[in-house]
């Protein structure tokens, strides 16, 4: 399959809005009693601090394959560590405590709670989502035991972590974060054009008065937006942001396998997209959703007030406004924080 055209990119944007707006609004209402501080309060608290660089720790397969966390932990980096929910377990197991944790996905099945250690895992319906994919390999075997370990880790380090929590998040995650002692800073996702009649973004803002932040469609890009817009980092390093699957990944191990089976029942791999990475001299595999994330990031990067270094050492995120360099080089450029 070819890369997405503009029409298909717009279609995915429209579908995503349709799927997330209603549930996001519902969660925002349910989360209202928990709201104390917002990203605006955080920004005011940080005004006095010196400007620091940020490292975004996203949860793509390169994160564990390249042992990026180990390298960051052993470096002299003094800036902010901003993890996404999906990488929290990997960070904590490897002894890296993030300063900030970003979470945004309002998924109706509430799969995201697994990243925090799910106290109700044994009561949930069967779901092979985590086992099928190459995300956090620790969750691939003995799920219940790994989950218990994660609950303990998150409870232990939670009080040291500031969670940048979207109002659209399932309230079960809110309660999980609070039970782990995390400090919460709220934001609304910018759903649509706030100048349009019946804008959802404006409706949400009008009832909770919380700033709306551009998401980029997923949590990794939201963390990048947070780093340069709220933390005001001028240098932002990203790791684990593959937006794709490593060469040789089987279609069954991709996130949208079920969708591809429906569109191409005979040959689901037809729906995958091959992208050559000239820096790695490798061809990586992506799908429509990850391709959408990638295109969005590349549209936003030149508009951001930061330099972006993609130190994933894998994947397909390169282009204008994104410098694709090894993590060791990225750390050298930002060591002073």
């Amino acid at each position, binding site marked *: 399959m070819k890369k997405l055209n503009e029409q298909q990119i717009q279609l995915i944007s429209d579908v995503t809005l349709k799927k997330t707006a209603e549930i996001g609004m519902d969660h925002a209402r349910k989360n209202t009693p928990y709201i104390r501080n917002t990203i605006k309060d955080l920004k005011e608290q940080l005004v006095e601090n010196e400007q620091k660089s940020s490292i975004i720790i996203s949860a793509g397969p390169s994160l564990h394959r390249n042992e990026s966390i180990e390298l960051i932990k052993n470096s002299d980096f003094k800036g902010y560590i901003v993890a996404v929910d999906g990488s929290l377990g990997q960070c904590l197991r490897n002894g890296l405590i993030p300063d900030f944790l970003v979470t945004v996905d309002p998924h109706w099945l509430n799969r995201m709670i697994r990243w925090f250690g799910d106290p109700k895992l044994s009561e949930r319906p069967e779901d092979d989502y985590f086992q099928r994919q190459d995300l956090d390999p620790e969750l691939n075997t003995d799920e219940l035991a790994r989950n218990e370990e994660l609950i303990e880790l998150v409870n232990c380090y939670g009080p040291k972590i500031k969670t940048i929590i979207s109002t659209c998040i399932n309230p079960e995650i809110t309660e999980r974060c609070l039970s782990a002692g995390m400090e919460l800073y709220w934001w609304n996702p910018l759903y649509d054009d706030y100048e349009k009649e019946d804008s959802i973004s404006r409706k949400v803002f009008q009832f909770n008065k919380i700033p709306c932040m551009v*998401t980029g469609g997923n949590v990794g890009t939201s963390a990048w937006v947070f780093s340069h817009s709220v933390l005001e980092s001028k240098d932002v390093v990203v790791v684990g942001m593959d937006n794709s699957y490593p060469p040789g990944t089987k279609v069954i191990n991709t996130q949208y396998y079920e*969708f591809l089976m429906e569109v191409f029942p005979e040959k689901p791999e037809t729906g995958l997209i091959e992208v050559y990475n000239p820096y790695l001299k490798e061809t990586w595999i992506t799908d429509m959703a990850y391709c959408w994330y990638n295109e969005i990031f590349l549209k936003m990067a030149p508009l951001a007030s930061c330099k972006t270094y993609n130190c994933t050492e894998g994947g397909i995120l390169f282009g204008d406004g994104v410098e694709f360099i090894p993590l060791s080089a990225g750390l050298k450029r930002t060591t002073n924080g």
Partner: protein
Amino acid sequence: MSKFLKGNYKVKEDKGKESSKEEDAFSKMFESKAMEKLGGSIAFVMKGDKFIWDGDDEKTK
């Protein structure tokens, strides 16, 4: 006159038309299935180069 207009060569098959038909069919299927199953984690929109909207125009509304 008709003898002069008689075709003396074979018209090549228009593969472009066929592949564009295939693409159209795929686009339609993609759209209908995408409406059911596809989508990102969260909605995305961007206005100009603004990354945060804090209701700054609310007071004037």
